[in-house]
């Protein structure tokens, strides 16, 4: 059974006088352990697609089966739990809590998983060690470089043993050298732990890390190799 099974999804934004079709008739299947790079020009619907995959947003029409479960029938809290257990997010703008230490940021998903503080500490440390921030536990986001902040975000994404990591332009705010480091980290996670990684980028160099490439244009998939 496929991990992600998308069937004929459309997403329409109703802006009153005009309707914007951000996604139109998108269907695809992604299996466990894949490393997918999503490409396409700005405004082609990549982020919209990722948000639907991450259960942050719902499609206007179509079906989305995650691990065989139709997410359409799930409540707000069911979706929150699904995100908590299965999905890790990495954003272009990092999206860390400000004035909150690296380790507390990483602990966040575990708090909502209801874990004890002792367990949280241990798992968060392990996750930060894994992304190479062993000596930065108590740094605040504004005391870390962009690359380090993105590593904290990756640690947060994988701390609760997520099966899927959704990364929307994770290297968009980083320089080339740091981008390469981040990508190598993601590759390691994919190969060593079998985490499914879906990555949006518009840089062809970055897209090369993906073993499968999906190209969006005007809200539809135009290439899938």
């Amino acid at each position: 059974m496929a991990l992600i099974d998308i069937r004929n999804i459309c997403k329409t934004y109703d802006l009153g006088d005009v309707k914007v079709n951000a996604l139109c008739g998108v269907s695809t299947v992604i299996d466990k352990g894949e490393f997918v790079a999503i490409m396409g020009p700005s405004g082609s619907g990549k982020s919209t697609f990722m948000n639907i995959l991450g259960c942050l947003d719902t499609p206007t029409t179509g079906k989305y089966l995650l691990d065989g479960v139709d997410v359409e029938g799930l409540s707000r809290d069911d979706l929150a739990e699904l995100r908590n257990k299965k999905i890790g997010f990495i954003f272009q703008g990092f999206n860390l809590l400000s004035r909150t230490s690296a380790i507390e940021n990483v602990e966040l998903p575990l708090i909502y998983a209801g874990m004890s503080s002792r367990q949280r500490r241990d798992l968060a440390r392990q996750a930060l060690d894994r992304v190479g921030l062993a000596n930065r536990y108590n740094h605040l986001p504004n005391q870390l470089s962009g690359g380090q902040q993105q590593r904290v975000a990756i640690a947060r994404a994988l701390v609760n043993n997520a099966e899927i990591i959704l990364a929307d332009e994770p290297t968009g705010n980083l320089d080339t050298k740091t981008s390469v480091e981040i990508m190598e980290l993601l590759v390691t996670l994919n190969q060593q732990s079998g985490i499914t990684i879906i990555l949006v980028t518009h840089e062809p160099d970055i897209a090369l890390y993906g073993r499968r490439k999906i190209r969006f244009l005007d809200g539809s998939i135009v290439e899938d190799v």
Partner: protein
Amino acid sequence: MINISLTIRIALRAIKVNKMRSALTMLGIIIGVSAVITMVAVGSGAKQRIAEQISSVGSNLLMILSGTTTPGGVRMGMGTQPTLTFGDAQAIQRECPSVQYVAPTHGGAAQVIYGNQNWSTGITGTTPDMLYVRDWGLVSGRNFTDDDVRSAAKVCLLGKTVVDNLFGSVNPIGEVVRIKKVPFTVIGVLESKGQSPTGQDQDDVIYIPITTSQKKIFGTQFPGMVRIIMVKARSTEELSSAEKEITELLRQRHRIGPKQENDFTVRNLTQMMEAQEQSANVMTLLLGAIASVSLVVGGIGIMNIMLVSVTERTREIGIRMAVGAKTWDIRLQFIIEALTLSMIGGIIGIIFGVAVSEALSYFSGWKTLISPFSIALAFCFSAFVGVFFGFYPAYKASMLKPIEALRYE
């Protein structure tokens, strides 16, 4: 569900980030709570003072006066038309089962002289039972007796104010004072009772046998007449039956026909004083209610700031939702934040309110009474304000769409 102590830590951090804003928000609650505490303290202080005064006057008291209060027609003022007699008082004692003690009085104002000191005060001629009617004890000496009344003995009991003004530090027992030039032997000194509910000094009094007053000091053209008869009923429940029995008895004794008006008035002192106590209760309630309004205003301040906080932290809410925060996780976070604000404000307000009440009674002399109940009430009320006014902002936060919250600029 996330755990509470962690949520409190998050709330405290959020409060610390905006110190000034949090302090100003709390100020609303501080003012509200301390106003409630102070106002209730002032109100219950007044109430307690009235209660003390009531018990100082004596309980279950009825006062019978000459004359009538019935409106209509030309009538004499109360007490000006002497219709009550010593015999009436004795009959009430004998024939009214609800009555415990009876004390007729007769007297007036006069100058009292001891050595080279003098003092003008009220002289009340009465019977020994007066002290039982008024629940009044002696600090020294003895009460006068029925024999003293029969023989119109020249003995007197002095109130504390009189003793203070005439004797200073001399022991008055056995000393001789002159009332309208008549020498009296001091046989007893009354306990201090302080002010009456109407503000009179109850200790500025001299009690002498009623016969002595009638024959030797305030002789009138109506011998055997008394001004006022004080009556103590057996219990509070029997006050109204005592009133009825006395009225019937006196109508009979005074031969008043069925259509005629009473030539006397029975006043229920206890009822009158309880009415005063009641009005103090109402005042306490009113003051508390007015102060509560400021607490509500403080609550609105919290709501206002929480709404601002939710808007400012939309992205944070989005991040929390993205990593798995459920509806009640978000709600609790903001409710606890509001609760923390209001409770800290509440505790400071309680301390402040207690201090203000103490200062008020110290500087203005008003009696204030801080009850644990009013503190508990203020505390619970401020908690309630936090939850009540925190709920809407928390609800709003929890209903944000995850993706819209995340994308909020």
